[in-house]
């Protein structure tokens, strides 16, 4: 690394630490006055440094558009005493069913979740949204439809740095494609359930 890179690396750490919450990659690059690709490289370097160095207690949690600094899962027991009750989350059968679909197949619209589960999932999805385990964004193509994906908080309960670390992620992620359901209008047309 050259001098500039070293400084940017330090600034990156300071920003992630200071901000605390997941920060948009775009915002990060703009604050560091670098391009998004450069920012991605810096994050990769930081990620590698944290993973390789066993005297570091921190790790990155990464999504497609955001990144956050968090403690490594190995240190859960130390923090345990400090963790507030409000962060504790148990999963009901419906929540587990819905979460695993969103985790492996998301982002996907609620109509598809309903279709796959054969159940109107509006209450379960709303509940997961309220608990912060799931997040939603408007579909970029169809603005009036939300797409659901798992949140960083979901990953943190599982101790995963990114969704791709889910066990057998590769095996499941293309299930819909295999059944030719990926872009099927069929699913949306067949169930005319109210959208949340």
């Amino acid at each position: 690394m050259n001098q500039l890179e070293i400084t940017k690396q330090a600034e990156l750490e300071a920003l992630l630490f200071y901000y605390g919450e997941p920060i948009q990659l775009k915002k990060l690059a703009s604050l560091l006055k670098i391009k998004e690709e450069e920012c991605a490289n810096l994050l990769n370097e930081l990620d590698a440094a944290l993973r390789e160095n066993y005297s570091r207690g921190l790790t990155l949690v990464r999504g497609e558009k955001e990144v956050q600094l968090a403690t490594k899962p190995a240190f859960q027991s130390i923090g345990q005493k400090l963790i507030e009750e409000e962060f504790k989350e148990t999963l009901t059968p419906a929540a587990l069913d819905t979460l695993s679909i969103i985790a492996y197949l998301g982002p996907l619209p609620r109509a598809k979740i309903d279709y796959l589960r054969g159940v109107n999932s509006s209450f379960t999805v709303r509940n997961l949204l309220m608990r912060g385990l799931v997040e939603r964004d408007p579909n970029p193509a169809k603005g009036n439809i939300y797409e659901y994906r798992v949140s960083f908080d979901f990953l943190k309960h599982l101790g995963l740095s990114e969704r791709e670390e889910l066990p057998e992620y590769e095996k499941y992620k293309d299930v819909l494609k295999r059944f030719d359901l990926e872009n099927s209008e069929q699913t949306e047309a067949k169930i005319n359930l109210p959208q949340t």
Partner: protein
Amino acid sequence: MAYELSLEYYKGPLDKLLDFIEEKKLEVSTLSLVAVTSDFLAYLEKLKKGETQSQVPAELLADFLVIASRLLLLKSKALLPSLTLSEEEEGEIKDLEMRLKIYQEIKSSQIHIKENWRESPQMLSREFLMNRAVIFYPPKKVGQPEILKSFQAILGELEQVFKPVATIKNEIINLKKKIEEIIGRLTATPLKFTDLPTGKGRNELIVLFLAVLHLIKDQLIVADQEDGFSEITIALRPFDKTQGKQAQDNHESH
């Protein structure tokens, strides 16, 4: 919210259907769906009667009824080969089979989430701007009208969220029409009992139909309570003649 919460502990219709198929150690296929139709209806009856731990939400029963009607179609076809299904109905049955296969596959991923899930987060992060003092930064373009407008919009959305009943009612009414229509077609089928491959085939079918109609009827009453709609009676005329006793019994029990 307690009422909706109970929903979280019930298996959905696909999940339950899969259970029945797997209990019989069958692969997912049209044939195995026919094989578990009675199990499924019996379970639905149990759900409806509240023989389970807590009261079953109407939404869930509605979802079960949708699947039940498709199973019935399939079973009708198996018992009465002369019954012709429309293209749409054939499609619905294929669709159910495919959905079950997909669900079976996706369901197996649950174990990974379940095993790795910890009640407390395994990774901890910091709050937003953790060690910083508060400084007042007034937002631009936010005055009294914006605050009022935003608040009213939220209330509007809430009205929507808490009024799902009408939709459920519509779904159930559609289902009821559909089953009545199938019954109509069955009675119109130029078949005598003696023509049937097994004599009890038709009887079994009628019992199944009655069971589902009966489930739907109760659902309609529940959904209707909301706006004081009058009770809907179900016409079973065609059966009053041919299968008089059976239908009559069912009528009188209400």
